[in-house]
């Protein structure tokens, strides 16, 4: 890799970090929309494409915050193999927060897309 590529990669990664900041927790809420899930499963779903999270560990402070602010609730569940797992599911507040984000996100995304295309 030539130095220019490395600089560009670092810049991209910083940009991604900033962009994730507002959206990632809603992606977690969205993953829970169809039912409860546990940490490892959520982490794998988010890290699959390497865009939403790069370090799976960063999911856990996020889950902790979501729980603290009452958007998700947790319960312990026995697992087929190994120790019990903590399952996360959406609360009514979580559902409302997700709906609010979706209402805002689409016009926002479209506006950004329009601005980027118009600037060409």
């Amino acid at each position: 890799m030539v130095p220019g590529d490395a600089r560009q990669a670092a810049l991209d990664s910083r940009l991604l970090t900033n962009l994730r900041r507002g959206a990632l927790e809603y992606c977690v809420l969205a993953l829970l929309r169809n039912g409860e899930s546990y940490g490892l499963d959520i982490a794998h779903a988010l890290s699959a494409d390497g865009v939403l999270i790069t370090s799976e560990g960063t999911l856990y402070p996020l889950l902790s915050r979501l729980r603290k602010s009452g958007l998700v609730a947790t319960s312990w569940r026995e697992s087929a193999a190994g120790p019990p797992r903590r399952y996360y599911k959406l609360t009514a507040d979580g559902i409302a927060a997700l709906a609010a984000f979706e209402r805002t996100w689409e016009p926002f995304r479209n506006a950004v897309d329009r601005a980027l295309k118009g600037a060409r």
Partner: protein
Amino acid sequence: MNTADRRIAEVERYIHELAIALSGLPADEREDVIAGIREHIDGSLLAIADPTSADVQRVLDELGDPLAIAADAGAPAAAASRPPGTGTTPPSRAATPLSGAASAPRQDSANVPLLERDWVPMAVIGSFVLAGFFVWLGGPVLAFAAWLVGLVGLLASPLWHAVEKLFGVVVFVAGPAIVGGLVLGYVPGRGLFRDNAGPRVTDSWFGGYGAWPHLFELATAGIVVVLLAAVGAWLLARGSARARGSSRVRGSVGG
């Protein structure tokens, strides 16, 4: 060390590093994050038939650097405060109410009441230390002024609980009085610098005049000074922890 032990040691080292990196967080939050990470590691390794050291390393690599996780969790420097009750975030880095509490830079000190800011404990305890210095330098008026500032700060700031305030006041009033009394000779017959106070030989528990004529007084004064320092350090620690906590709580209440 066999392979299983080495795997466990690697995991424990990672958890240990994470715990240190997260030490700025409140204990419940820290334990929450660590429990989640531990479950993640256990679950990942259970899915592998016979995990090798390399497997463990891969799982830990995927989790990421403990410092990066801690930075994301807002520990320790990123404890931010936001306008209480607004539910919005500062326009800078934090983009959402949820992540804002932890990831916004510490900038909204204007929202933390004056007597709850993080420099208050240092200033209060510093005043007491300063008072001691002024006594030593021979400036009783300045010493009294600094002592009074410390005392008022300790009583006025909500960073200390009532019991801590009471304890602090008792110690910081009685302590200097005892030391002062012993050293300056206001305790009748026991003053270090008074040689005219009648039969002294029987006064001191340690034998009165000798190689160490004032051993009792010196020892007592020394113990009291050590006690003052210990109580000062304790109040500083409690106050500082609460000052950090208060800005963090404010941050999350707003969200």
